[in-house]
């Protein structure tokens, strides 16, 4: 059975060009770039070129780029650097819909006595800037906001937040892991102090990420060690990963407009096809301000894991924010923050496309999904007819014991 992969916000395939570029760095150019011989020197040249390519992707300077092991490391390092370099500031602002790579380290800081403000979002997943303005305090060390949400694709107004941060003298960190390759990223205005990317989200390899640190921002390394990355991140470089990341960045710049148009057209076809043929469905996220590749759709009265496993049987890979797929018992914190009703919350599915998604694949999904949802709804005790009256839909739980 052929696989239709629509889970590209989880990870993407390595582009063939990227794979080809990486390959010799495993077997042929395996020297340590820090070595003082020619064999290592040629590797150092490859690293330099990759750094320049990544810098070009976000309009940065090459020496503002730190290679990391992943997006999570970059996010953790940015947060750590912001608080370590401003010991008198004990407050951080973020949003309720961030990735765990942000939320977890911030929760840890809370235990260490820091105050964290988690900004809410509206029903479309969008921030209220006025709330952000009100949240800024004299002792605010950092504003940490994602460029685009990984579940809904909703894009945050990064430039406006950046202006606000600069006006108030607060450092600004952008988790751009999900945005890279899908929307333009530009740090040249100087509004962003830290920005994080991850290679495997835009057809680079896994295990390589980027932390941009604006020139002039005080930085304390998370990984203290050797002099690699100008002393900002110890550890021998993941050379093939960096070469792959650089190639992926080049490729992204080259095909950006074409990819954007193509993905958004296919995404809209998928979304409209579902919303127009299957009743009781809705788009989750902002209708306009969102990534071109992401469609998050809520299917009322059915549960997400059941949909995912039914799709999987047809060779279709997607993702769900339902509790049952996450190992947690609570559904997606992002969808909950948006105030989705329970009738939708557990049955929301994320379809995320890539530059390699084809129209035929989208049509194939549309061909099977309607009867699939119909079958699961036939199984469900919930329906539009009983939504208004059924006590199960009104109550948190129904408790039954034994006499």
């Amino acid at each position, binding site marked *: 059975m052929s696989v239709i992969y629509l889970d590209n916000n989880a990870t993407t395939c390595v582009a063939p060009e990227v794979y080809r570029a990486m390959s010799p760095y495993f077997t042929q150019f395996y020297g340590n770039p820090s070595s003082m011989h020619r064999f290592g020197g040629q590797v150092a040249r490859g690293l330099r070129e990759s750094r320049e390519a990544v810098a070009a992707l976000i309009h940065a300077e090459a020496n503002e780029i730190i290679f990391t092991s992943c997006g999570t490391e970059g996010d953790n390092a940015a947060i750590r650097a912001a608080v370590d370099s401003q010991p008198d500031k004990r407050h951080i602002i973020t949003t309720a819909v961030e990735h765990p790579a942000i939320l977890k380290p911030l929760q840890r800081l809370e235990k260490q006595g820091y105050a964290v403000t988690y900004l809410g979002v509206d029903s479309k997943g969008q921030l209220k800037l006025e709330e952000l303005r009100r949240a800024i305090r004299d002792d605010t060390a950092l504003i940490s906001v994602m460029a685009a949400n990984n579940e809904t694709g909703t894009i945050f107004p990064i430039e406006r937040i950046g202006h606000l941060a600069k006006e108030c003298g607060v450092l600004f960190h952008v988790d751009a892991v999900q945005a890279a390759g899908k929307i333009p990223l530009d740090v040249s205005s100087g509004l962003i102090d830290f920005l994080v990317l991850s290679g495997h989200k835009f057809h680079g390899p896994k295990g390589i990420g980027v932390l941009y640190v604006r020139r002039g921002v005080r930085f304390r390394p998370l990984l203290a060690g050797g002099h690699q990355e100008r002393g900002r991140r110890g550890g021998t470089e993941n050379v093939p990963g960096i070469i792959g990341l650089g190639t992926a960045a080049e490729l992204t710049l080259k095909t950006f407009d074409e990819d954007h148009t193509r993905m958004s057209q296919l995404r809209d076809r998928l979304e409209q096809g579902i919303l127009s043929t299957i009743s009781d469905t809705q788009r989750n996220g902002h209708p306009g301000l969102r990534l071109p590749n992401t469609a998050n759709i809520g299917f009322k009265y059915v549960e997400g894991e059941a949909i995912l496993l039914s799709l999987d049987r047809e060779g279709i890979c997607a993702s769900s924010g339902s509790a049952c797929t996450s190992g947690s018992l609570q559904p997606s914190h992002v969808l909950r923050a948006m105030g989705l009703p329970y009738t939708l919350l557990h049955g929301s599915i994320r379809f995320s496309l890539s530059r390699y998604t084809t129209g035929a694949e989208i049509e194939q999904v549309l061909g099977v999904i309607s009867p699939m949802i119909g079958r699961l709804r036939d199984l469900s005790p919930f329906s539009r007819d009983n939504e208004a009256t059924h006590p199960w839909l009104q109550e948190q739980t129904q*408790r039954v014991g034994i006499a």
Partner: protein
Amino acid sequence: MWDYTDKVMTLFHEPHNMGAIAPEDCTDGEAIAVGEVGSIACGDALRLHLRIQKANDLILDARFQTFGCASAIASSSALTDLVKGKTLDEALRIDNRAIADFLGGLPQEKMHCSVMGQEALEAAIANYHGVAIAVEDDDDESPLICQCFGVTETRIKRVIRDNHLTSAEEVTNYIKAGGGCGSCLAELDDLVAEVYETPTATTESGTPTASRPAQPVEEEEPVSLPIVNLTNLQKIALIQSVLNQEIRPVLLEDGGDVDLYDVDGNLVYVSLQGACGQCASSRLTLKGFIERTLRDRVAPDLVLETLDV
């Protein structure tokens, strides 16, 4: 992806007995019993329909409607296969472990799906006997431990006891309590400790090592563990002891009581007294509480009957 058995996946994709039973599906002498558990807020819900031959309490048909994941749907299908053709008394012996076993096992994190099946069955039978309100009232008196999923202390203790759970994490897997904000996890640990004592063994080096809790400590003098190959006298003494220490205090709280009348092999004859003797749900009390407790504490093959004396 969860490590589901082939049986779970088969029954998820092609479930048996889905749907509802309507009054027109019944003939004279038959009744429909409905049990509903869960909620859309919790992420899984099951409505079970039983068609019952009233003359002999025989389950002629069973159907389900389930909102939930693959294991919830498979558990519901398994439940309906298990109960069809059984009497209500026989059906009450089907617990969540039987459902999970029927499926070839469930991931630990999904055991709550099997518990939901057991509870829907009990709810249906309770409704059939017209005692659903009493059941909920009883439960409502118990403190609410998990606010996120609305789980009471009574229910948590019962699941701990029935499934020999030993940690808050296991409680969450089986009944969801603690799986939300997590603020009740410490209380769950306390309840586990309350239900069981944790005997410690001492290694040769003298380091105490925790072993699996095995013995309820609801009384100051815990009942001895069931032993293999009990003599008749030992069995009777153990039954009497469990009745006195674990069962009678619960019944006395509700104005009821129970007396041991006789033991004949695996048949245990008791007499329900006071409120229990006149209660419409006395059969449930007998099978769902007294028999289950004695089976857990004395021998798994015990069958309880009441005797009019």
